[in-house]
């Protein structure tokens, strides 16, 4: 059976979190239901499994196509590289390889664009680049974007997906949490709307900084959101935790997020929220 052959060759979605741009194969396997999906089909379906509705992680470019009006995105194009504060040899090589593989500069892209004609500053993270972790470049790009939102008086929208602070940059990564958070106090003072959109998975230092500080916090269905992972918490406190306690649905119930929005409705929801705020 041809399908069986494809099944063997198809990269699993877990190993290829979001690099659907990359011609590693034309097919991908759904982690949820095992269906083999033509990548073209998946891209046309907002990276949602047509069989079971499972949300695949999205490449920055796919997310931009979905959210931002065609041809209106302008990247801030900062062209930054980390100073590698811990002098990790392997790290520099890894970054270089990732840049080539993903076509991305770093784990976040930021710029201006329009949503149904409304100007916004938008930041989109990508799990395919070191699990969307935040080091100095991500911190700087997000902070710069916040400052641009203040200057241009455009609403700010950040799509988060992240494993947290970037281990390879040590304490400097941790400090990016304070840096982005401090910038948000200025945005807040300027009365500019900030909508934080949490996608699967959003963890660690990103949850513990800008992702949790939106005036409005939205999440995609079933997104996993937390600070420490469930296993780590259980080991630390010596108690087991209820199933699904880090899902968007659980967090909505407990008042941490404001609304769960299906991927197909995200653009219009953002548009409406911007309209209300005007």
């Amino acid at each position: 059976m041809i399908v069986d052959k494809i099944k063997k060759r198809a990269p699993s979605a877990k190993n290829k979190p979001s690099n659907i741009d990359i011609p590693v194969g034309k097919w991908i396997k759904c982690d949820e239901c095992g269906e083999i999906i033509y990548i073209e089909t998946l891209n046309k379906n907002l990276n949602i499994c047509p069989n079971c509705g499972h949300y695949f992680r999205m490449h920055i470019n796919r997310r931009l196509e979905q959210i931002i009006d065609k041809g209106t995105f302008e990247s801030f194009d900062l062209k930054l590289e980390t100073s590698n504060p811990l002098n990790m040899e392997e790290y520099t090589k890894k970054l270089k390889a990732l840049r080539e593989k993903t076509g991305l500069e770093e784990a976040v892209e930021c710029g201006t664009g329009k949503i149904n004609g409304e100007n916004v500053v938008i930041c989109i993270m990508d799990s395919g680049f070191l699990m969307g972790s935040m080091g100095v470049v991500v911190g700087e790009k997000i902070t710069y974007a916040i400052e641009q939102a203040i200057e241009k008086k455009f609403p700010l929208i950040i799509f988060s997906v992240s494993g947290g602070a970037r281990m390879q940059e040590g304490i400097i990564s941790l400090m990016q949490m304070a840096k982005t958070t401090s910038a948000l106090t200025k945005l807040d003072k300027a009365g500019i709307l900030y909508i934080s959109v949490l996608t699967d998975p959003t963890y660690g230092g990103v949850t513990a900084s800008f992702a949790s500080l939106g005036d409005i916090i939205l999440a995609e269905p079933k997104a996993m959101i937390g600070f420490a992972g469930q296993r780590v918490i259980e080991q630390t406190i010596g108690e087991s935790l209820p199933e699904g306690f880090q899902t968007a649905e659980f967090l909505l119930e407990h008042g941490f997020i404001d609304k769960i929005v299906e991927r197909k409705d995200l653009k219009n929801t953002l548009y409406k929220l911007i309209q209300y705020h005007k």
Partner: protein
Amino acid sequence: MLKKEVSGEAIAKSMFEMAKLEVPIICIVIGEGSSGGALAIGVGNKVFMLENAIYSILSPEGYSSILWKDPSRIKEAAEKMKLTAKDLYDLKVIDKIIKEPDDEDAFNKICKNLRKEIVSSISEMKEMSKDEIVEHRYQKFRNMGEFIKI
């Protein structure tokens, strides 16, 4: 229950409120400071560290198991992570190292040193306006971390 799943938000909110305070803030790392919990109360105009204290993104145990999937490389992690007062001073994460003399009267001497540094920092910031204090703290964290323009 609730605390466990929203500790991330608590850290974010704590930093957010600290960043806005209109009075000088001096933070002192006196033992083991690590991860978001430490930073949540670490957004100060001045950050001091006792000479033998550590301040890091994560415990060396956690670091080696996350980065190398090998918790036994603790010693190597501790060396690589740059978590000593001297390292953090060089990285411009902290402003001052408080000496910890190794003698019988150490405790009193440390307290005396600390007192001196706190008093001098306060008098340094005394003349600043509310806005200047907030902006001083902002610039400190705004400039955390160096990067290269490609």
